[in-house]
């Protein structure tokens, strides 16, 4: 009788059950082969956690193993169940019990065919020491080392013979575990102990053997299959050199290493065949070698099972190894012959593991929220995942095996790169983005690597693992829609999902004619002197538009977005403005913090969509773009980036301490294409008169001429002087006086007047300044004029032209178009971002709060419950401005406001309104009387004025912000603010610039810190943002990573989200269009989570949004106690509940033990903290009775009490009455009153 054929085995197996004793990828892989040709029933073992796993769907039957996740190792149980089912063959897959020699033995005893090696063969080849012995006998080179298990002494001796470094390996090990490398003798003992411990723990065998550690080697293996008749087939090599900690990550066949010659290949195959034949092996096996750079092979081990990477050999040859393995196991003759089976393809496999490579390949488990598998020519995918699958934590992290194959290596790589880019696994971290990095690596592509490739190339870990932007933005829309408000704009819950919406923002954009578009800006570009000459000589009044910055800073709290700038900017660009103020001040910070937009990127975009007009930015002297003084090197660094993005830089100091501007002036003046505009901070008050301001401007010009090395006259030709009236307080007559004086003194100095609308006198004041010779005025779009920003450009122009006879050269039609666009978008900002208090406030001339602070400060008083004190606070502001003299603009305005707020509320807390009135009387007296003339009562009383001030005010008095413009205030102010230490404070005062004492920051260190936080290097802009506003910069950077660029969403969606069924078409940053429709928003779960389902580009997705606190205080299915509810009795710690003393309906008294928790022989009696009736007992235990404990977690609600309605009034009873309607006390029987 001849050898059994494949067809005979097919006949035999038809309809019979073959069991795969495994799970996941191997189980699915093998079941496929069982079904394809044998027509057998594919059965798969499954622990409870795997019953409904994606892999299980491939099996026709499941052999259930019960709740224990490790039962795949329980050979006896598996064989017993297999026998009961009539299984004819068991395939062990890989991992689990696949290399347990008892498995084939037990199968044999049970009369079941084990599809794999025999126990004897496993013992001979699977044991590394034995395999080496066989190899040595056959003359196959092995890595020098111990023949068998060694002890420490033996190890020492061997090290003397073969030298260091060496590796200690577990005799029973595999998969790279239990290997320790020893580089010097001192490590030996410790490593030996650790390796032995790990070997025992991992493989149940503490024995170790020793091998010479070979450096710079490749890992090459030969797949073998053999039948029972002595036929052996050796396949071409697999190159598994890309490993991490001896765990293979990428496998390639054939090896693309130039050193892999045909000669070497044949040699390896020959070794492998001889080894297999020598032991009479039949089944699949893999013979593994290390190859040194000179091409010398060393056998390391033989794997007596199917291997994870077998698929690439199948793709190289177009065969099914598992099918052949099954056939061989049932006695078929091997169908492969050297003469007929030829290798045709290159193939590679990457292991898609659910691990985070950037966090040391930490495994992660959890819900797969999105799954899109790759496909197309040359792709094979063996996976165990699908969308909605909760990837379990119990097993290894293998998610899928992705294989590509083609005729050549470059194409194979190309297919792999493409397949990885198609492959989307959402919800958990995978190795996909990491492999994309590896594929880009030139050493990898050339094959110029060794087994330490990954360890030696840490740059492979530097990547950003982001879902496509469309998907991320859709989540943002879902979040805003579910909440009804956008939490990121930081304006609180300004609406809910049920608030009527303004509805879709679908702006009508008037066309801009090409002739208008082509018309260049009248202002010479790129040469500030030419620009200034032009302005000086033009004879017109020039204008700057502040709509995107100061205008909307004051009126919309800076929430004006880049998205709307993109709409408005092109119209503004065609008006013919000198400049558009689009950056700086609070806008810089808020753009990041609330608009989630990088400010310098925003500026760069402006330069693209509005290229003709200069862009202008406001800098707060030493504070630059923040709220506290910055060191000189940071000012320079920030200044340089500013100059790259803006053409006009206005800089002010709230103390007019000119030296504070020097670092910025130095940077800007070094650039010929950027105009420096030092600005005078202006108040209208005694002492701040024309001659005072002339002195300040003189100081400015002195500094400029010093920096430029020119005369004061030349300096006055080289800059623009800003006149900055932040409050809008200087009356027209004062402007006439000041500007005339300035023009007279410095006739060539270009003047740029900036003021606010707050006092209502914007237009006449601008008119007065212009008439007196100011060259440029700050204005804005009428459609956006509200109370606190600048005034309307068209009405100002009308006043100048028609009333004063001045010339203006703006394109009024372009302004009209801009106004039309602006009209359409303002309703959204008005509804969601407009100031709390609105309207003109002429009293600003008294209290001096500038711009938007007029409203926001007062809003603070109201929200803190002090609205009744507001008139007093404003009075205090009026008074204190006359005592401590500086200009009310950031940060001065905040200091003034806080001082007033604290003084008035402090007085009120001390003695009510009477005390407040007294405080104001004292303040009034102090403003009108010199300290030398204070009465004795007043000397005492004045000490209360600043007793409640904060440190910012004290620092101001000490000169820490810079020199006070009219000198230090009277001594009583210090006595009041500093108390007993006032003299020391007076002694410590300084008039020097804070820059002189601020040490430079260590940029390298800061960059390192930022890199550590981001897990990547910040780009230049991100680093500047981080240096200026660390926390908010990080927030913005992280937001961008999480959601993308929100400026891609239209205005209504940004503020209101979408309604169910409403369509949204949006483009992502790279221009790819998307369509989004919300399908449903679920009611919040007990966890307070709503699920939003939506269709994004015809794919249904969902996103969970936390909308409220958990109602039932449930955490992962566990009811949590409300810590604020005294009737909730919680488990005090994690532990075991072992005795419960109460039942529902029982009455407990405060201090009574309710239950007891045991943890590590510590028993915690949990007592009731109030009298109560037991309403619910959520968990119970009685260990004495049934020897069962119930594990509980800290904070878990165990017993819920309810208030006891009444207590028995009988003097000797006093027991609680449990029922509302009881007429008699159930304890003493007396009548209940």
């Amino acid at each position: 009788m001849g050898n059994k054929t494949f067809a005979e085995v097919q006949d035999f197996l038809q309809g019979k059950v073959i069991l795969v004793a495994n799970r996941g990828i191997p189980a699915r892989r093998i079941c496929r082969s069982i079904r394809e040709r044998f027509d057998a029933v594919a059965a798969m073992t499954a622990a409870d956690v795997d019953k409904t796993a994606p892999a299980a769907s491939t099996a026709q039957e499941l052999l259930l193993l019960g709740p224990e996740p490790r039962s795949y190792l329980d050979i006896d149980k598996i064989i017993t169940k297999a026998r009961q089912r009539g299984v004819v063959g068991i395939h062990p897959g890989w991992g689990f019990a696949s290399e347990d020699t008892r498995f084939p033995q037990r199968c044999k005893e049970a009369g079941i065919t084990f599809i794999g090696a025999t126990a004897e063969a496993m013992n001979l080849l699977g044991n590394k020491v034995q395999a080496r012995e066989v190899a040595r006998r056959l003359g196959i080179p092995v890595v020098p080392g111990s023949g068998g298990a060694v002890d420490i002494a033996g190890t020492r001796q061997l090290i003397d013979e073969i030298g260091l470094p060496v590796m200690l390996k577990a005799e029973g090990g595999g998969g790279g575990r239990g290997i320790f490398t020893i580089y010097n003798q001192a490590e030996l003992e410790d490593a030996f102990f650790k390796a032995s411990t790990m070997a025992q723990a991992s493989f149940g065998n503490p024995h170790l053997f020793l091998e010479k550690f070979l450096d710079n080697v490749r890992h090459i293996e030969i797949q073998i299959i053999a039948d029972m008749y002595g036929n052996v087939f050796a396949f071409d090599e697999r190159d598994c050199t890309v490993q991490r900690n001896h765990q293979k990550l990428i496998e390639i066949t054939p090896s693309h290493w130039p050193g892999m010659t045909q000669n070497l290949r044949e040699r390896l195959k020959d070794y492998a065949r001889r080894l297999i034949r020598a032991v009479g092996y039949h089944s699949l096996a893999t013979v593994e070698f290390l190859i040194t750079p000179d091409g010398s092979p060393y056998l390391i081990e033989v794997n007596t099972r199917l291997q994870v990477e077998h698929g690439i050999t199948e793709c190289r040859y177009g065969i099914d190894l598992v099918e052949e393995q099954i056939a061989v196991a049932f006695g078929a003759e091997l169908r492969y012959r050297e003469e007929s089976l030829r290798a045709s393809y290159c193939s590679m496999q990457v292991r898609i593991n659910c691990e985070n490579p950037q966090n040391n390949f930490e495994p992660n488990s959890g819900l797969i929220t999105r799954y899109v598998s790759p496909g197309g020519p040359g792709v094979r995918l063996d996976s165990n995942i699908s969308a909605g699958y909760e990837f379990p934590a119990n097993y290894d992290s293998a998610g899928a095996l992705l294989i590509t194959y083609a005729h050549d290596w470059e194409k194979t790589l190309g297919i792999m790169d493409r397949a990885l880019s198609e492959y989307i696994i959402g919800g958990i971290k995978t190795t996909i983005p990491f492999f994309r990095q590896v594929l880009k690596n030139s050493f990898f592509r050339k094959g110029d690597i060794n087994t330490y490739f990954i360890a030696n190339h840490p740059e492979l870990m530097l990547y950003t693992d982001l879902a496509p932007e469309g998907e991320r933005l859709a989540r943002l829309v879902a979040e805003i829609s579910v909440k009804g408000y956008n939490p990121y704009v930081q304006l609180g819950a300004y609406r809910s999902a049920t608030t009527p919406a303004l509805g879709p923002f679908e702006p009508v954009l008037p066309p801009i004619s090409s002739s208008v578009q082509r018309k260049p800006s009248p202002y010479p570009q790129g040469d500030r002197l030419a620009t200034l000459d032009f302005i000086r000589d033009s004879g017109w009044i020039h204008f700057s538009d502040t709509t995107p910055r100061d205008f909307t800073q004051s009126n919309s709290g800076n929430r004006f977005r880049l998205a709307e700038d993109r709409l408005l900017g092109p119209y503004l660009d065609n008006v013919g403005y000198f400049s558009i103020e689009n950056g700086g001040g609070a806008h810089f910070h808020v753009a990041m913090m609330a608009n989630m937009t990088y400010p310098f990127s925003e500026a760069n975009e402006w330069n693209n969509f509005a290229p003709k007009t200069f862009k202008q930015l406001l800098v707060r002297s030493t504070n630059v773009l923040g709220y506290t003084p910055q060191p000189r090197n940071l000012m320079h660094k920030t200044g340089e980036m500013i100059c790259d993005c803006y053409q006009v830089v206005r800089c002010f100091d709230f103390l007019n301490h000119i030296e504070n501007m020097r670092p910025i002036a130095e940077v800007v003046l070094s650039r010929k294409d950027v105009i420096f505009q030092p600005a005078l901070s202006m108040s209208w008050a005694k002492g701040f008169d024309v001659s005072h301001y002339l002195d300040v401007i003189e100081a400015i010009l002195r500094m400029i001429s010093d920096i430029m090395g020119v005369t004061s006259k030349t300096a006055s030709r080289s800059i623009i002087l800003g006149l900055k009236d932040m409050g809008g307080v200087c009356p027209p007559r004062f402007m006439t006086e000041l500007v005339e004086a300035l023009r007279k003194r410095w006739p060539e100095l270009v003047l740029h007047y900036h003021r606010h609308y707050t006092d209502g006198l914007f237009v006449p004041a601008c008119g007065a300044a212009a008439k007196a010779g100011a060259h440029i005025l700050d204005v804005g779009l009428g459609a956006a004029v509200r109370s606190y920003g600048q005034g309307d450009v068209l009405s100002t122009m009308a006043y100048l032209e028609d009333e004063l006879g001045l010339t203006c050269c703006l394109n009024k039609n372009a302004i009209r178009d801009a106004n039309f666009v602006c009209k359409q978008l303002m309703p959204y900002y008005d509804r969601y971002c407009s100031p709390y208090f609105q309207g003109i406030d002429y009293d600003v001339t008294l209290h001096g709060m500038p711009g938007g602070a007029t409203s926001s400060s007062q809003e603070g008083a109201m929200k803190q419950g002090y609205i009744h004190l507001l008139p007093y606070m404003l009075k205090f502001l009026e008074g204190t401005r006359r005592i401590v003299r500086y200009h009310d603009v950031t940060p001065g305005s905040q200091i003034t406001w806080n001082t007033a707020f604290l003084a008035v509320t402090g007085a009120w807390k001390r003695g009510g309104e009477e005390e407040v009135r007294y405080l104001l009387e004292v303040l009034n007296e102090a403003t009108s009387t010199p300290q030398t003339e204070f009465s004795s009562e007043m000397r005492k009383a004045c000490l209360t004025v600043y007793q409640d001030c904060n440190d910012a005010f004290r620092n101001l008095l000490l000169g820490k912000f810079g020199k006070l413009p009219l000198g230090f205030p009277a001594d009583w102010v210090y006595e009041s603010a500093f108390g007993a230490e006032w003299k020391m404070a007076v002694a410590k005062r300084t008039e020097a610039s804070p820059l002189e004492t601020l040490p430079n920051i260590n940029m390298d260190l800061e960059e390192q810190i930022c890199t550590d936080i981001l897990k990547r290097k910040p780009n230049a802009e991100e680093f500047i943002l981080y240096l200026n506003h660390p926390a908010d910069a990080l927030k913005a950077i992280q937001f961008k990573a999480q959601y993308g660029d929100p400026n891609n969403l239209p205005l209504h969606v940004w503020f209101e989200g979408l309604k169910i069924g409403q369509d949204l078409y949006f483009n992502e940053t790279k221009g790819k269009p998307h369509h989004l429709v919300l399908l449903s928003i679920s009611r919040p779960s007990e966890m307070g989570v709503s699920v939003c389902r939506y269709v994004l580009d015809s794919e249904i997705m969902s996103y969970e949004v936390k909308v409220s606190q958990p109602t039932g205080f449930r955490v992962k299915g566990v009811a949590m106690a409300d810590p604020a509810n005294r009737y909730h009795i919680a488990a005090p710690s994690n532990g075991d509940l072992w005795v419960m003393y109460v039942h529902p309906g029982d009455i407990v008294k405060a201090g009574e033990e309710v239950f007891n928790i045991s943890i590590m022989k510590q028993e915690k009696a949990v007592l009731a903290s109030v009298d109560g009736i037991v309403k619910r007992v959520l968990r119970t235990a009685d260990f004495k009775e049934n020897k069962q404990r119930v594990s509980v977690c800290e904070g878990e609600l165990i017993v819920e009490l309810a208030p006891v309605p009444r207590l028995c009034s009988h003097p000797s009873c006093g027991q609680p009455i449990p029922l509302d309607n009881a007429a008699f006390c159930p304890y003493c029987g007396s009548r209940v009153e």
Partner: protein
Amino acid sequence: MSSCQCFDECRIIPWVDSPDVNNNPLPVIWFTGQATSALDAGFWLQKRDRLAVWDSVIVAAQTAGRGQLRRTWFSPPGNIYAALRLPLIPPFDGSAASVATGLLLASALHELGWPVLLKWPNDLVLLSRQEGIPHKLGGILLEERGGVLLAGIGINVASAPSICVLRKNAAMAAASLADFVKQPLLAEKLWQQLVKHVYLAYAQDSAFIRRWQSRAEQLLLWRGSNVELSEDRHTTRGKLAGLSPTGGICLFTDGKMTEFLSGTLRRA
């Protein structure tokens, strides 16, 4: 003092040692005859403000001595049955309290010349001098109620329960100190010495909160050996690696370290 059901309060007497070298007073030890349990007596004293932190009470015998989960504690006269009040501050304010208390007592016994190790979490185990076979010498049960933490401490001084009295599946045989010495030992006397050592070891080590873990690991029975940890019907095998900061036991099992907070430990 008002009447008490747990013991005869007329026979309770305080004993105060002379102050230590720094003239700090040492904790008070209360003695009494038979009681339901030392823990009951301890809580009774504490309720009357007579049991400050580190004060203790030792009773001559217990009529209802209790072990973990109200298991019976064999309590004939001659052994130590004491309750020691512990401070509710780290490491005694969390799950580490059991191990930390075990460490203090095992170290105290060590200093008195007894080769005592700690079987996790806090059984006191005496190694027989020749064979090094571990025998259970005593146990500790912590009870916390109403913000008061007491350690109930039982140490076999004169006698130990025979193997047939021990609960089924007990991890090891019991022994008493009397099995190893010719001279009879007095439980009260030994307790005085132990309390002094325990108190001073704690009070004079400002870094106890940081060091307890490594010190307890040095005294840990079966460290580095294969053990099995069973609880209810679950059993885990692994190599005993050490303790966690919460006082849990760390087993090296299946190639990874796992921390356990409960279970009975046996030699595998």
